[in-house]
């Protein structure tokens, strides 16, 4: 049994206008020690998957399918068991470091909270976080812990959160868009941070990103998502150097160094999904079959791709 196994997961959000299919039949596997990336544009359902894994979706979400972590069935265990897995086994570096620290608490107390929740001695916990912060290339960690969150820069907050997430040595670290809203210099810092975490702590990591270069640098395997479906999955060099799916190709063409060619059109409505391929209206390699029949996943040249071309 693989380490993290997500099979046929669908997430629907019930809204007044009907149910929104945010994630539509997703399956992937992750091995221990592996860095797995999920890439795709905004709204493709990347973050929803992480929240589904940690069971943190809002109450109007309906999740179906199976998520196995080691041997636990994450979707059926009770809340108490789930709370023990969160933080201890699976930890998440949230999307927005600035909003993820309570503005009223000194950083030291935020960090102490982790240990309070875990039921560990706070002083020792803080000491281990200090070591972790030093490890994460941060200067004067003791000084930083005495500050309030608003006194830190975005990158420092991210490191602090990473240190908090790592401090209990979770076996799986989930990072939700770690490079979102950062300038290229800070991005490099984040990249160093993740490389460091990978090297020093040997964590298995699930990285959600829409930064293709970042994914190329850090991930072992990636999945490309479009409109709630995985369209291509495989080793990072295969997928990003030699893309199979027209959407992956379009994503790469939209990079500045590849000519900044925009992808026309919009993602389909997720309330009434079209009958055929979800990418049909935007695809420049479409055929008649694509408009009427939803493609299934196929193996091709070492990657799994969801397209009628293969």
């Amino acid at each position, binding site marked *: 049994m693989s380490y993290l196994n997500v099979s046929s997961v669908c997430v629907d959000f019930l809204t007044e206008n009907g149910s929104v299919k945010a994630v539509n039949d997703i399956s992937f596997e992750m091995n221990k020690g592996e860095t797995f990336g999920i890439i795709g544009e905004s709204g493709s359902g990347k973050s929803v998957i992480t929240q589904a894994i940690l069971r943190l979706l809002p109450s109007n979400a309906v999740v179906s399918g199976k998520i196995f972590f080691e041997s636990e069935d994450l979707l059926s265990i009770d809340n108490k068991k789930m709370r023990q897995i*969160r933080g201890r086994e699976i930890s*998440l570096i949230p999307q927005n470091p600035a909003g*993820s*620290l309570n*503005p009223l608490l000194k950083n030291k107390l935020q960090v102490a*909270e982790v240990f309070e929740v*875990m039921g560990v001695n706070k002083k020792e916990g803080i000491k281990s976080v200090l070591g972790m912060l030093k490890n994460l290339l941060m200067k004067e960690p003791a000084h930083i812990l005495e500050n309030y969150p608003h006194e830190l820069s975005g990158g420092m907050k991210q490191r602090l959160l990473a240190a908090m997430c790592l401090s209990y040595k979770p076996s799986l670290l989930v990072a939700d868009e770690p490079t979102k809203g950062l300038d290229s210099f800070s991005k490099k810092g984040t990249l160093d941070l993740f490389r460091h975490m990978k090297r020093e702590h040997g964590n298995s990591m699930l990285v959600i990103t829409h930064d293709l270069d970042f994914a190329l640098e850090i991930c072992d395997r990636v999945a490309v998502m479009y409109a709630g479906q995985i369209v291509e999955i495989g080793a990072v060099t295969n997928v990003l150097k030699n893309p199979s799916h027209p959407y992956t190709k379009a994503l790469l063409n939209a990079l500045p160094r590849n000519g900044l060619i925009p992808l026309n059109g919009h993602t389909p409505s997720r309330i009434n999904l079209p009958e055929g391929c979800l990418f049909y209206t935007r695809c420049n390699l479409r055929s008649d079959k694509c408009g009427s029949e939803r493609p299934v996943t196929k193996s091709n040249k070492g990657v799994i791709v969801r397209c009628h071309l293969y």
Partner: protein
Amino acid sequence: MIGLEITCLQNKSSVFSLKKDGIAGKILNRKDITISILLLALLFVVAISYPLLDFSDPNTIDLTNKNLAPSAENPLGTDYLGRDILNRLAAGTTTSLSIAAGVSAISLFVGIFIGCISGYYGGIIDETFSRIIDIFLSFPGIVFALTIMGFLGSGVINLILALSIVHWAKYARLMRGQVLSIKENEYVLSAKIIGAGNFHIMRKHLIPNSVATVIVLATIDIGHVILSIAALNFLGIGLPSDIPEWGAMLSAGKEFMRTSPYQTIFPGMAITMVVIIFSIIGEGLRDILDPNDTGGEYL
């Protein structure tokens, strides 16, 4: 000339802006709040020291000296039973402030607790508590308090209970609204991510981040509570007659309004003053604690 005046004003405001650091500086910047706080402090001194110091009994009846105008011996005059009005007003300060403090403490505690649970859990729990809050808010406060006092009978504890039952729902509703918005913050999500329990999240994140607004409302509300105490006593249903209280003094004095107006004027002034003080402090706190407030432009 006018230009010169404007420059002067600007200079003045820049001098003032030097003082503006921290909450204390902001309070000192606003004269109305400073004065109100000083007056409130005075009232607190009276309320606390009165029972401790050995004054003559405010209930001493002296029928030979009834309905007197203010004089050296009785600075605010005497009432229809010859009791010293100043003495009774001072004793009434203790009564009003201690009851108001009790009411605020109980209703704040209950309101914050229920509002937080209701807003955080949502769903059926929220529906249930919200409807209960609606029911409590749907009665006019003073009529509701009168009814409860009718059931409970007069007395300090009963009065505190009755007014708390009337007031908690307001705080609960405000708290619920605050929690509804605060709980969407990502630091609540990150607390969940590290595996924090619900009560931990409420205690550490939700209550500290939403309580300021509720406390501001409670400060403004203390004036109303004191007014309610006075109103219930004016209607003769609050406290037993041996406890001096401003509303009761007002009620007793109204028969002698023509011949000896001091029996109503001074308690009336006391009630008005306290209500105004708490309103100014409450609204001032609201301005000062508002993070979007730039400070200063109060003319």
